């Protein structure tokens, strides 16, 4: 017999109430963990360690193109080391459900600038020589079982080619790996020169440019110089660091995640009240026993510790099962939405948040019973009157 055995037997005193409360907690933590998993997918791969890369897009919208000759104009600005560019292809393979992140890029400069993609020199050279060549991420290649030399037709939901078709013929010329593992190997690249000549409209334009500044340059100053250069033209630009750009693009998703988060917080607080109510009710039912224990010499602190451990037990058990089910569910979701929303997973820091939440909730749930136990008058509670 010890305090933990006491907590154990007291927890299972009302099995139905215990189970229902546990299930409520489990649902709360299940939702919380699922959200964390989706949030991880929305915010992963948005960080960039490269502080020197800028991104220049049309001032009004990313959907508007910029003239391709901006590359030369930006390249001569003081503080700019090199300039590359890319255009969004909006591709899918066979079926629209197989969405792919396909970019047409400047084959001469892009992979020199984006050195986080690991491609063998041989394959890179081969790709540069192959007009319709694709550079495919290892994860994508594995998924569709593509090998170098395979002919792969990709469809675009935006771009029609000169033949009047939205299906573009390609050949896999290179496969790249990423330091981020599978989550960083889900893009496909092809030559912008092929794209520009083969597309039916908007030739000599790019979606955005990526100037790289020298290490000595002031990033803000260079950005201002670039934008100033095109301020009075039809193609006015907005230049930011790559990090800011990515964060802005993701912002709309993050806001959505924030809304879901708020909903989950509301659910969580409702469930907190349920657990609080359970603990208050359970404590009230046992006031006589608590008074008896006090009479035997147990301190208020011991009784409060007992209530705290009971709250903790219910919450920890619910959280454990909630996280376990969420983990299983997220594995399934990550497979189901591998194309639309890659990176669904639970981050290790989430478990720390869960632990902190359990500890905080257990403390909050024990407050009212603790007050009652502290004020408990033994003689009155045991019905001993004068």
């Amino acid at each position, binding site marked *: *017999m010890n305090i933990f055995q006491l907590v154990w037997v007291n927890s299972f005193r009302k099995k139905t109430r215990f189970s229902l409360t546990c299930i409520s907690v489990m649902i709360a933590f299940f939702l919380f963990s699922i959200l964390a998993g989706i949030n991880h997918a929305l915010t992963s791969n948005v960080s960039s360690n490269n502080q020197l890369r800028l991104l220049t897009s049309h001032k009004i919208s990313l959907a508007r193109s910029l003239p391709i000759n901006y590359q030369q104009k930006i390249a001569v600005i003081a503080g700019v080391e090199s300039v590359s560019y890319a255009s969004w292809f909006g591709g899918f393979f066979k079926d629209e459900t197989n969405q792919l992140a396909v970019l047409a890029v400047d084959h001469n400069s892009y992979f020199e600038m984006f050195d986080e993609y690991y491609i063998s020199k041989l394959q890179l050279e081969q790709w540069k020589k192959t007009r319709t060549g694709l550079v495919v991420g290892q994860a994508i290649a594995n998924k569709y079982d593509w090998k170098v030399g395979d002919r792969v037709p990709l469809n675009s939901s935006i771009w029609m080619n000169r033949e009047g078709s939205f299906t573009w013929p390609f050949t896999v010329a290179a496969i790249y790996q990423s330091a981020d593992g599978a989550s960083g190997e889900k893009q496909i690249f092809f030559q912008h020169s092929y794209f520009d000549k083969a597309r039916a409209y908007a030739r000599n334009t790019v979606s955005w440019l990526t100037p790289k500044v020298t290490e000595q340059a002031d990033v803000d100053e260079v950005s201002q110089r670039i934008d100033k250069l095109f301020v009075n033209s039809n193609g006015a630009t907005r230049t930011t660091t790559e990090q800011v750009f990515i964060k802005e693009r993701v912002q709309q998703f993050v806001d959505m995640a924030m809304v879901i988060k708020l909903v989950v917080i509301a659910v969580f607080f409702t469930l907190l009240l349920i657990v609080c109510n359970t603990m208050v009710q359970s404590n009230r039912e046992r006031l006589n*026993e608590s008074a008896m224990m006090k*009479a035997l*010499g*147990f301190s*208020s602190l011991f009784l409060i510790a007992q209530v705290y451990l009971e709250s903790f037990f219910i919450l920890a058990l619910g959280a454990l099962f909630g996280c376990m089910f969420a983990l299983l569910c997220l594995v399934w979701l990550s497979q189901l939405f591998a194309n639309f929303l890659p990176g669904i997973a639970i981050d290790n820091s989430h478990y720390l948040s869960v632990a902190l939440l359990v500890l905080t909730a257990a403390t909050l749930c024990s407050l009212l019973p603790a007050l009652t136990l502290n004020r408990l008058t033994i003689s009155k509670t045991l019905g*001993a009157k*004068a």
Partner: protein
Amino acid sequence: MQNNNQKKVAIELININKSYQKGSNKVVVHDNFNLSIAKGEFVALMGPSGLGKSTLLNLIGGLDLPTSGSVIIDNQRIDTLSEGKLSTWRAENIGFVFQSHHLLPVLTAQGNVELPLLLTALNSKQRKQHASLALRLVGMEERAKHLPKELSGGQEQRVAIARAIVSDPKIILCDEPTGNLDRKTADEILTLLTTLNKYFGKTIVMVTHDLRASEYASRVINLEKYIHDSKQNQLSAVEVNS
């Protein structure tokens, strides 16, 4: 009385005043009350309801504090102790037996008896041994694994007595221990208390309405008469002094 005075005093209530507020009225339960109980005595406190018998028991056990006056147990004044110290003192010195035994329904007889030992330095094995011994003393060793709901009223009270004596307290306070029991079972419980008093030297204070129960005690205090006599003595003392 002379015999009692020669013995060491176990419990001493000096000039106890106890009152409480009931709505807008102040109810005085004890007014300048004095009582002395010697070590090894088995005292039965009797009298009509409302005279403050249970209040006295609570004051002796440190479950309640007097409005004024001193409660001295084994030469230690307990009414000035902090709540924490009072809890520790109770655990070491007092065993309680109540009319409603207040056993924890989720624990077996063994578990209930072991409960007060959680406050001692005994290890798990020692606690089990002590609890088994206490249960053997009250004749309940064979029912050690039973839950309270599986025991009769008398058996539950025996377990409560085992719980009261398991930490070897000097004083056992019983509040109507036979109130809910039939005659035969009540006699068994009272015999058990007498054994604890005679053979183990426990000082027992028992509140009871049962005249038969009082026959087991070494001293019976009829509280109504005791209070009346005390006041007469006080008045006489005042008159003599003046």
